[in-house]
C-alpha cells in the first residue's frame, strides 16, 4: 500500500512537471513579425531602400544564428513612396496580412499617422530615421533610434555662421523633418542676427527659377535646400541663374536622382551627413561588408542603413531574451517597451547609444560633409 502511494505520488509529480513544461512551452514566443514602411520608389528612396535592406540583413543574420529558445523573426516591407498618407493603410495591411508586432518606419509624418493604431494593436513603432521633438512627444509605444533632427540640421546653421554669411534663404519640402530642420537653422541664424528667409515649396515643384531669381535680386549669399531630389533641379537653376553663392542641402543629398536632376550642379554643396567615419568604424565596416556581400552594392547613403542596422539590431538583441526574461503574464509590447527604455548603453555602428525616457535615442551625431563628385562626399568637419 505504501509502495503504491509512493508510486502514485511520483507519477503525480512527473505528470505535473510534464504538464507545466508543456504549458510553459506553449507560452513561449516562437515567432515575431517585423514590418517596414519606407520609401522604395518615387522619392527619398535613399531613406527606404537602404534601411529596408539593412534590417533584412540583420534579421536574416539573426534567424540564421538564433538559438533554439530564441524566436524566429519574419520581415515584411511596404513602400510608402514617401507619402505620409500611405503610412496608415500600409500599416493596416501589414497588421492584417502579417500581424506584425514591431513596425519600423522612416517617415516622421507617417509615424504620427499610425500613433492611434499602434497603441490599440499593442505594436511597438521604431522610427529608425528621425528623432525630433515632435516624435518625442508621441505615445509610449513610439521609439526613435536615429539622429536628432534639430541638432543635425543645426550643423548648417553653424556652418553659415562660421562662414560669416549674412543672408540666407531656406527652401524646404513641406514635411515635418524638413520643416524642423529649417526651423533649427533659422533659430541659430536668428541668434547670430543673420537674415534668414524661408520658402516652403510644394512637394512636386521642379521649377524654382522665379523664387531663385528673386532671391538673387535680393542679394542672398547662401541657399539652403531642405528637401529631396526635386531640389536637384533647384541647384541646377541656381547655377543657371549665375548664382555662385554657397549651396547647402539636407541629409538626403546623396541620392542618384538628386545628382541627376542637378546635372552636376550639386557638387560643392555642403550638408549634414554621417559615414563610417562618424560612428563605430569597426562595426560599420563589418556591416557594409556583409551588406555588399548580400546585396551586391553599398546603400546610396550610409547613414540611413547604419541607423536602421542599429535600430533593428538593438530591438533584436532584446527580443533574443524574450523567452528567458519576459514574464508570461506581461504582453510582449509592454515588455519590449520596458526593455528599450532601460537601454542605457548600446554599442552600435553609429556610436554608443542610449535611449531616454521619451523613447528617443542619444549618441548619433552627424558632421558636415561636402559633395565632391557624383555620389561622393567628403567630411569637412
Amino acid at each position, binding site marked *: 500500500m505504501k509502495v503504491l502511494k509512493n508510486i502514485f505520488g511520483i507519477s503525480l509529480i512527473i505528470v505535473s512537471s510534464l504538464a507545466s513544461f508543456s504549458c510553459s512551452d506553449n507560452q513561449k514566443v516562437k515567432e515575431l513579425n517585423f514590418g517596414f514602411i519606407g520609401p522604395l520608389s518615387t522619392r527619398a528612396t535613399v531613406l527606404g531602400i537602404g534601411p529596408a535592406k539593412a534590417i533584412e540583413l540583420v534579421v536574416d543574420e539573426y534567424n540564421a544564428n538564433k538559438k533554439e529558445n530564441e524566436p524566429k523573426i519574419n520581415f515584411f516591407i511596404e513602400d510608402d513612396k514617401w507619402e505620409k498618407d500611405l503610412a496608415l493603410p500600409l500599416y493596416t495591411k501589414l497588421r492584417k496580412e502579417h500581424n506584425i508586432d514591431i513596425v519600423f518606419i522612416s517617415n516622421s509624418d507617417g509615424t504620427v499617422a499610425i500613433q492611434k493604431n499602434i497603441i490599440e494593436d499593442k505594436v511597438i513603432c521604431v522610427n529608425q530615421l528621425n528623432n525630433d521633438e515632435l516624435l518625442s512627444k508621441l505615445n509610449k509605444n513610439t521609439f526613435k533610434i536615429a539622429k536628432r533632427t534639430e541638432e543635425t540640421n543645426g550643423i548648417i546653421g553653424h556652418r553659415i*555662421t562660421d562662414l560669416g554669411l549674412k543672408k540666407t534663404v531656406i527652401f524646404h519640402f513641406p514635411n515635418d523633418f524638413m520643416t524642423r530642420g529649417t526651423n533649427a537653422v533659422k533659430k541659430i541664424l536668428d541668434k*547670430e542676427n543673420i537674415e534668414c528667409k524661408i520658402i516652403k515649396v510644394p512637394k512636386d515643384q521642379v521649377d524654382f527659377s522665379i523664387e531663385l531669381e528673386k532671391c538673387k535680386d535680393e542679394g542672398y549669399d547662401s541657399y539652403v535646400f531642405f528637401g529631396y531630389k526635386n531640389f536637384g533641379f533647384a541647384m541646377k537653376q541656381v547655377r543657371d541663374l549665375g548664382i555662385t553663392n554657397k549651396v547647402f542641402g539636407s541629409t538626403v543629398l546623396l541620392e542618384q536622382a538628386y545628382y541627376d536632376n542637378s546635372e552636376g550642379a550639386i557638387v560643392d554643396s555642403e550638408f549634414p551627413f554621417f559615414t563610417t567615419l*562618424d560612428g563605430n568604424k569597426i562595426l560599420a565596416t563589418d556591416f557594409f561588408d556583409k551588406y555588399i556581400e548580400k546585396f551586391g552594392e553599398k546603400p546610396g547613403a550610409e547613414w540611413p542603413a547604419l541607423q536602421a542596422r542599429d535600430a533593428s539590431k538593438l530591438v533584436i538583441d532584446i527580443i533574443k531574451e524574450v523567452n528567458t526574461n519576459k514574464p508570461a503574464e506581461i504582453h510582449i509590447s509592454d515588455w519590449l517597451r520596458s526593455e528599450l527604455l532601460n537601454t542605457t*548603453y548600446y554599442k552600435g555602428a553609429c556610436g*554608443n547609444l542610449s535611449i531616454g525616457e521619451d523613447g528617443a535615442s542619444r549618441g548619433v551625431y552627424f558632421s558636415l560633409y561636402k559633395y565632391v563628385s557624383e555620389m561622393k562626399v567628403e567630411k569637412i*568637419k
Partner: protein
Amino acid sequence: MTIKRKLSFSFGLFIVLIAGTIVLNQIVSQKAEDRYEIIRTQIQPAIKSIDKYKQINSSLNVLLKKKLESKNDHSTTNNKILSILEVEIPNLIRSLKKIIKETSSKKIKEYSSGVLLSTKSITEHTYKILNLLESKKDYIKPKKLSESKDIFAGEITIHSNKVNRNLYRLKQLLNESNFQSQNELKKSFSQISLIIFIFGTVGIIIGLIIAIKTINSIITPINKLKDSASIVGSGDYNHKLQLHAKDELSELGKSFNVMTGSLKNSFNIIQAQKELQERINFTETSKNKLYESLKGELSVEQISKRVLDFFLNYYKAPMGAFHIITENNTLVCEALFAFDKDKKNVIETPVGRGIIGEAALHKKPILIDDVPDEYSKIKTTLGELKAKCIFIVPILHGNESVGVLELACLTKPKDSEIEFMNQVNNSIGIAINAAQGLRYLEEAHAKLEQSSETLQLKNKELEQFVYITSHDLQEPLRTISSYADILEEDFKDAVGDEGMQYIGFLQKASKRLTTQIHSLLELSKLGSETKRGVIDFNTIFTNLHYELSFLIKEKNGQLIFPPFVSEKIQGSPIELQLLFQNLIVNAFKYNNNDNPTTEVSYMDNGDHLTFCVSDNGIGIKQRHFEKIFQIFQRLENGEGSGIGLAHCKKIVESHQGKIWVDSEPGKGSHFFFNLPKKQ
C-alpha cells in the same frame, strides 16, 4: 543485534554522514556562491565602471582642452563631447548609483556620491562651454573664450580632480572589498575541502569498522551453516547446528535444524513407504504366482499339490501337507511334502478331531510355537531338523472349510506372511470348491448319460407299446364294430328299439375309440418319421386352400391366407401343414357363426416368425387356455378326439417354437405360434 539492524544502522550512519557532508557543503557552497556573485555582479563591474569613469573623465578633459585650443575642429570635438555627456556619463552615473544602492560601505557611498556631485558639475560646466563656443565666430570673442577657459581651468578641473580622487579611493575600497571577497571565497573552498576530507575520512573509518564487524557476523554463521549442510547432505540427519548469536542467521540455524528434523522424518516415511511398497509388490507377485498356478481346469489333487508347493516355498517350510474335506466331513490328505508318501489319501481325519480337525471345525488358523518333541523330524542326508513352528490354516470357501494346510516351518511366519495367507485363503477355497464341483459334475454327467440312455430305451419301448397296443386294439375293436353292425342290420327286430339304441351307442363308442387309436398312432409317429427341409409357407397355404375348400364351402365360410410369405425356415413340411390344417379345421369346427371366417396372418419378429390363426367362433374361456393343449382334453362342447391341439403343440415344440391362445367366449379365438428362423 540482528543483521537487519546492523545493516540499517550502518547505512543510516553512512547516510547521516553523507547528508551532513551535503548540508555543510551546501551551506558553505551557498556562501561561496553568494560571495562569487557579489564579486561578479557588483565588485568587478563597479571596478570596471570606475576605470571607465576615469577614462571618460580624462577623455572629456582632453576634448575640452582641444575644443578650447582649436576653433577649426570644434564640430567633431563637439560630437565627441556630446557623446560623452549624453551617453557615456549617464551610463556611468547609472553604474555609480547601482554601486551606492548595493553597497553597505559608508565610505563607498560617500565617495560615489562625491563622484556624482562632481560629475554633475562637470556636465553642467561642459554644456556651458559648448554654448559659449558654438561657432568659429565665438572663438574670436575674447570674453566667450576667456570665460570658457576659466570654466575649464576652474570648476571643471577642480571637479575633475575630485572625481579622479574619489574614483581612486573608490577603486581602492573596491579592490579591498574584491580582495576580501576573494579571500572569503578561497576560505569557503578550503572549508568545503576540509568538510569533505573530515567527513569522508570519518565515514570511511566507521564504514570499514562496521563492514568488518558485519561481514564477520555474517560469514562465521554462514560457514557453520555450510559445514552443517555438508554433514546433513552426507546423510547425518541427527546433526544439529549450534549458533549462539541473536540474529537472523541464528534463526536460520534454528530453521535449518527444524528442516533437518523434518528431512529425517520424511526420509523415514519414504523408507517405510518403500518397504511397504516392496512388500505389496512381493505380495501381489506372490498372489499372481499362486493364482497363475491355480488357473485352468485342475483336479483337487493338482490344486492341493500346487498350493502346498507354493506355501512351502513362500514360508520356506521344509515339510507340509494339504488336506481336503470330503462330502462325509472327513479330512483326506491330498498332498504331502517331505513326509511319508504312502500316507497320501490314507490319512483321514474327521473334522473336529486332532489339531487339523479343530482348525477345520473352528475355521481359524493355528500357530504352534512350541513344537512337541514327538513331532515329525525333517530328515536330510546330513541329519534331522526339528520344526520350530507348526502353522495350520483352514482353507475356507465362503464360510465353510474346504481344506487344511499344514506347514512345519523353521521360523515363525511374520504377521505380513500370515496376512498374505488370509488374503489368498478364499481364492484357494474357491479353486478347491470349483475343482470339487467339477469332480461332482463329472460324476453327475456320467450318471445323467446313463439315465438318458435308459430313458431313450424306455421311450422306445413305450412307443413300441403304444404302437403295438394301438395296433392290437384295432383288431378287437373292428370285431366289436363289425358285430355291432351285424346286430344292427340282422338282429334289428330281435333286440328291439331299446336294443338298437344300445347297439347305436356301441357303434358310436367303437367309432370314437377307433378315431382315438388312429390319433394316438399318429401322435406316436410324430418326430420320428418326418423329413425335414426348407419350408415354403406359400406352398402350404396353396395346398390347404384346395384341401379345405370343401369344408369352407360346406360351412359357407371364408379362409384368408397372407398374400405372400417371403421368409423360409427349416422344418418338416408335412408337420407344419398339419399344424395349420388342425388349427384351421378347429376354427371352422367350433364356429356357430353364419359366416365363419378364419384368417391366417404372420409377423416377422427378427429371429423368428409369429403366425396367428384367428376365427370368429365360439371362443374359449381363459381357464382352458392351457388345458386345450393337453392330450385327450376336450371342453364341454367337445367333439373330436382331444388330441388335435396336443398334436399342434408337439409339432411347434419339435420346431423349437411355442404355441398359445388368446380368446374370449362368443367373440372368437386367436391361436399364436412362433417358429425360429434358424433351427
